């Protein structure tokens, strides 16, 4: 058994503090009685109550959610298709260029992506609103989806698809009935990643958003510029809670599935 040395304890403490101290302070101050963010005046949940009364925040949250779901769904469909072509398509003409273009948004500064999308929407005369945010988010999150999905496809046994073809499937049926169900976990995590990216995005959204379509990050950012209100703390605490519950339950579910599978495989081998 390895013991925690003085050095290990220190690095662990520093690491956790560095990562989570800001969030802990934010959560503590969300229960602050006082209107001043930096002065503690006793415990209260009143800012949570006020948050629920704030129609502007609720509207922004709804817009963010709609944009997130729509854009991540589009990104997942396009990203999965792109990944499939890149992994399975062999050496077609322009493959290197195509894969470069798919992965470019990963390294492209957001400001440039946002600006170029804005110019595109203006030049084709598309009014800025929810649709433009959805399109912009789908564009940049698609490459993340295709990275996740293609890494799964690389390790996917190609003979499974050949077996499906051999048993009478057309190429599309083989994808729908065999490939897709097997790579579904990767597709779902790609979707979740795209959703997170969309919920999180401020820079690109502020380029392409119209007056009627303020997303939550834009709303928070603009209200913080007028001074940090304890309501924002409450809102952020809720968001942290949602993310934490999601992440922890996802990892628990995966762990249990892996354990069960190992046990079944062991039993089958005997």
């Amino acid at each position, binding site marked *: 058994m390895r013991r925690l040395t003085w050095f290990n304890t220190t690095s662990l403490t520093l690491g956790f503090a560095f990562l989570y101290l800001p969030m802990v302070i934010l959560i503590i101050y969300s229960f602050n009685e006082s209107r001043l963010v930096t002065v503690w005046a006793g415990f209260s949940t009143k800012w949570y109550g006020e948050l629920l009364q704030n129609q502007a925040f609720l509207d922004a949250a709804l817009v963010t959610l709609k944009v997130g779901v729509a854009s991540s769904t589009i990104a997942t469909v396009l990203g999965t298709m792109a990944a499939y072509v890149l992994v399975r398509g062999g050496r077609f003409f322009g493959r290197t260029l195509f894969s470069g273009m798919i992965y470019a948004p990963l390294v492209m500064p957001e400001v440039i992506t946002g600006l170029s999308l804005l110019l595109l929407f203006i030049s084709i005369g598309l009014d800025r609103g929810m649709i433009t945010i959805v399109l912009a988010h789908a564009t940049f999150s698609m490459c993340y989806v295709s990275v996740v999905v293609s890494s799964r496809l690389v390790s996917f046994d190609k003979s499974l698809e050949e*077996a499906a073809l*051999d*048993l009478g499937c057309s190429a599309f049926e083989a994808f729908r009935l065999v490939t897709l169900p097997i790579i579904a976990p990767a597709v779902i995590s790609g979707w979740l990643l795209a959703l997170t990216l969309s919920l999180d995005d401020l820079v690109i959204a502020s380029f392409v958003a119209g007056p009627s379509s303020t997303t939550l990050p834009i709303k928070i950012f603009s209200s913080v510029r007028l001074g940090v209100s304890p309501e924002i703390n409450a809102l952020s605490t809720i968001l942290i809670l949602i993310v934490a519950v999601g992440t922890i339950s996802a990892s628990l579910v995966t762990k249990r599935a892996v354990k069960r599978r190992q046990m*079944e495989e062991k*039993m089958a081998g005997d």
Partner: protein
Amino acid sequence: MNQPAPTAAFAPWEDAKAKPLISFQNVTKKFGDFTAIDNISIDIYEREFFALLGPSGCGKTTLMRMLGGFETPTMGKILIDGQDMANVPPNKRAVNMMFQSYALFPHLSVWDNIAFGLRRDKLPKDQIEARVEEMVKLVRLDKFARRKPHQISGGQRQRVALARSLAKAPKLLLLDEPLGALDKKLRQDTQFELMDIQEKTGTTFVIVTHDQEEAMTVASRIAVMDEGLLIQVDTPARIYETPNSVYVADFIGDVNLIEGNASPRGDGKTILHWAEGQPPLVAECPHAPDVEARCTFAIRPEKVTISKEKPTDRTNAIQGKIEDIAYLGNLSTYSVLLANGTRVKAQTANNRRLSRRELTWEDDVWLSWTETAGIVLDK
């Protein structure tokens, strides 16, 4: 009572009128600069159990994948049942394949795996159920039908793969190293099971293997391949007894190879001078060259008799010293060193108890064989 007519041995390849089920006509396959298949022509007949045998990289898998429709020939034609297969995709062929990795669908149960192909044909539900039931019984997996592939053992998975590929009653079943992942005992049992199923269903089987024992056991004919070329196509017995080249003789089973100068004696027999100061070997062999040439004499260890006294009734007898004995239980193999440094193996059945046997290390012995025991090969 009517006496049934004596059934002729199954040998459609010897019947000039028989129509082949599969016909490769001058097929060549290239991957870039690499020639995987080099101008091959073979006919395979209905109900055959045909083995493609060769070391890895010899092109046997490519040849089979072309039958399945996963590769297209660069040159030449492949006919199945008289129809040119050039533009027929895998899902439109009456051919099914059992994959080396089994390729079972991990998200479907054993039952659904077997039903997969039938469902694609849009058969009525009760027909599908009856057929799957039949298949599950055939491979004795009734108890495991509801399990997922990862919940059963390797041998059971192999049987699911077989049942799935047989479910659509294909004209032709392709098996890609089907028993590679099984241990020896299970592999032998499964070989007999495969033969049994092949006979029951009357399907034509084409099997790819690198295991010569497996090919000998299951196949009606074997095609020995090397570097994209077809070396010999024949029945297992003829491949073993009369290989057409040193490559085939060496690839199938154990063999002693002795090089020498061969010349025909005129009475259908060949004389082989193989070492100075040693009597020449005499062999009677149908395919021996009819001019003097550098040749290789090939003889199987079990056809070499080993004895302490010089035998009087055999033409070929040479003397040597026992260098090594490999005791295999049922057999013993003696490695005998000849005066010129050549090693010759002789194999005898151990039908006596160990203590009663008379030969041991360093003994001077005579090796002998008849004129028809070995063969002379010129390539």
